[in-house]
């Protein structure tokens, strides 16, 4: 049974310096794809174990196979052309383009279901599986194929919908769409929501939509408020939105009430852009503030965004602080013992 105020992660987990170096070695053709795949599996096992030891209720694979939030997908989507696949650094973005419409029924998949299945057999805990959404993917593609703005986004959404079907068939029951670029293009929020609905269509799982202000190199790519997201996001067929609050402050909680958001909120209580570790008391205080706007059964507790840029030890300590803060509030709500 799901605990009150379940804890989870947004997706990515700390990428240690040694792993970054090995990934770069691969992109410079110094180690083989098989060796890197083996390395990734070992790293994912460790990431899942770290989350379990920290007490996270719903874990992820840490997205450790991915070079960044975009290229892992673009490199596998039939019809996306990437002229140069070697990289100076693994985290750099590819230059990608489409010169003709993406095939509707490609023979190949993105193999995300295999990624999920590997993680599934590692743990008894529920697993959240996240992937980057069609709007953000489209921002990194030079579109030479579609006449109407938005058609590339829709085509990518259809591709991801097919992939979500395979994930669900593989047993995934909690999927998350990440839209890290959306905050930079608030004028396109309706298009992004339309595309989200294409992705989730007829896929019977719990759906989350994560929108943040970017986390590339542990820096926000944009600043502002979540005003742009509402009310458009209410039309998204998702079960929760996962938003950042720890870094930006709690002011935007007002939008939940103001716009009558009636589903769950993945509430960001850990700032992933600083190595300063929050205290459990601070986490608890943030949750108490959120409870002024939503009942506990509509809150899920997570960091603001992925932990990928944090050193491993800092990531572990932050997760432990988050779990401890949640435990304190749970005890208050249920009358149980404080941790």
């Amino acid at each position: 049974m799901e605990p009150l105020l379940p804890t989870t992660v947004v997706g990515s987990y700390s990428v240690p310096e040694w792993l970054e170096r090995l990934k770069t070695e691969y992109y410079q053709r110094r180690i083989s794809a098989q060796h890197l795949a083996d390395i990734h599996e070992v790293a994912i096992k460790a990431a899942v174990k770290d989350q379990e030891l920290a007490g996270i209720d719903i874990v992820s694979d840490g997205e450790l196979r991915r070079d960044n939030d975009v290229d892992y997908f673009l490199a596998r989507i039939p019809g996306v052309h990437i002229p140069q696949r070697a990289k100076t650094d693994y985290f750099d973005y590819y230059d990608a383009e489409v010169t003709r419409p993406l095939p509707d029924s490609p023979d190949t998949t993105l193999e995300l279901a295999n990624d999920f299945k590997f993680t599934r057999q590692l743990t008894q805990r529920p697993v959240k599986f996240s992937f980057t959404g069609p709007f953000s993917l489209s921002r990194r593609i030079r579109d030479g194929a579609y006449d109407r703005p938005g058609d590339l986004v829709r085509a990518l959404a259809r591709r991801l919908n097919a992939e979500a079907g395979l994930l669900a068939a593989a047993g995934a029951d909690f999927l998350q769409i990440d839209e890290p670029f959306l905050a930079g293009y608030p004028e396109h929020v309706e298009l992004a929501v339309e595309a989200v609905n294409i992705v989730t269509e007829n896929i019977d799982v719990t759906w989350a939509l994560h929108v943040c202000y970017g986390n590339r190199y542990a820096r926000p790519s944009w600043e502002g408020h979540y005003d742009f997201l509402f009310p458009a996001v209410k039309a998204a067929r998702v079960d929760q939105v996962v938003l950042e609050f720890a870094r930006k402050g709690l002011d935007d909680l007002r939008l939940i009430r103001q716009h009558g958001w009636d589903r769950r909120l993945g509430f960001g209580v850990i700032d992933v852009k600083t190595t300063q570790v929050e205290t459990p008391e601070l986490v608890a205080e943030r949750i108490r503030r959120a409870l002024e706007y939503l009942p506990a059964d509509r809150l899920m507790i997570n960091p603001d965004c992925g932990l990928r840029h944090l050193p491993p030890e800092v990531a572990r300590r932050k997760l432990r602080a988050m779990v401890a803060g949640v435990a304190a509030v749970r005890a208050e709500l249920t009358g149980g013992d404080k941790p």
Partner: protein
Amino acid sequence: MDVDLRPVKKLRESAAARSALGPIIEAVCASPADLARLRVVCDWIQYKQNFREPVVARPIGTTDTEIAVDLRRSTDIDLEAEIKHALEDPAGVALEPWVPGRDSCIWRFNALYWQALSEWEQATGRQYEQSLPGGESDARNTEAARELILELFRIWDELDARRALPDELYILELGVGNGSQARTWLDEFVQLDRRHGRDYYRRLRYLMGDYSPHVLERARQAVAHHAERISALVVDATRPGITLGFLAGKAFLVYISNVYDNLPTDELACIHGRTYLVQTQAFLTDEDADLIAGQFGLDRSAVSKLIDRLLRIGPELLSESAPGQFPAPKSAVSFWRAAWDALRLRERYVPLEGLDSYQLTPDLTGEILHSLIEADGDVRMHVSNGALSSLTGTLPLLHPFGRVQCHDLFLTGSQQYRTGFYGPGKYDGSVVNWVNGPLLQLVASRRGFGVQFAPFRQRPGSNITTLTAQARD
């Protein structure tokens, strides 16, 4: 024996330099050195004031030796005698133990120069700006200021349209000089803002940061008519985050002019595929030590102690604490200048056991140097530790749409290290080193920033290069 003849421009221009090559080889061959364990470097030290003798010997590890000859000064000396002298056990008065370049006392001299600038200027009779190349700072260039301001207006208008413009618009200047950059910039801002009609000036926060309270005060006076928009802060340019942590993610522009070349640096060398740290030791030649001792009525053995005390307490307090030798601050400044003029560095190459064992900055290991060092074979390069620390401390201060703009002496390609000498030299009372641009570019890139270099457009022919860093992707 390797002979590394740097392909400096002067080889084509100076017949004297070319004619020195034969005698150099002859003199080396006449020396008692083991030629199988010797390398000879012929370069050209363009700084008239520098830390080198015309001929120096540098131990490489425990077995080999490098002899370096400054071609500019090689024609009027007895090469054979100089090489023999360089290979002998070092003499002179050492002012410190062997240390990495960034820890040398030359940086204490440099810091003293900025701290006691007014005393130095009084003694020399000229302001520091006159000692800059070209005799003035590039800070007064209104055209450069206008370009930057109009670009800021464009960004602010866009953010405002999205309701994402903060109430306070922060600009930071690190290393404020005499305030002329700030004055030019702010005066221009007022005019352009008036025409633009958005009243951004009211929201502007112009932060002036400098290591020297004296410099800061002088700059503050220069912009007194903008007092309500200005804050002046004592900032260590190599650790800006300590003072300016509150600015994280807020600065739309960080402007830095002629600071990086004046920050401590180590040098690393790759010789025959092995990596070495260049250690240095500041010293005075016996002749210079005797001269200074005689000039100030000192016992020769007291010279190094008094220099150390000068660097700790400055000329004014030195005069107070040793009135017998320095009856007035002016005489203590004379002592300072004499010591600075005479200051020399000897060098040696110490093997590094792996680049990761070397810290570029407290947060950055030498691992990142692999690609630069591996790309160019044998090379000796600045690590620009102070500049790196400053830049990596500054980037987090930037708003997502912010930028760093920095005018300085930058190398823009690693290959340049093979063709010229880029410091250290002496500018007036301060140290100057060209900055390792490719390294800054690489480190910024790994933090998500693109770094571009361009010639300083507003003063053609200048050695100054403009570095611009902005978030990429």
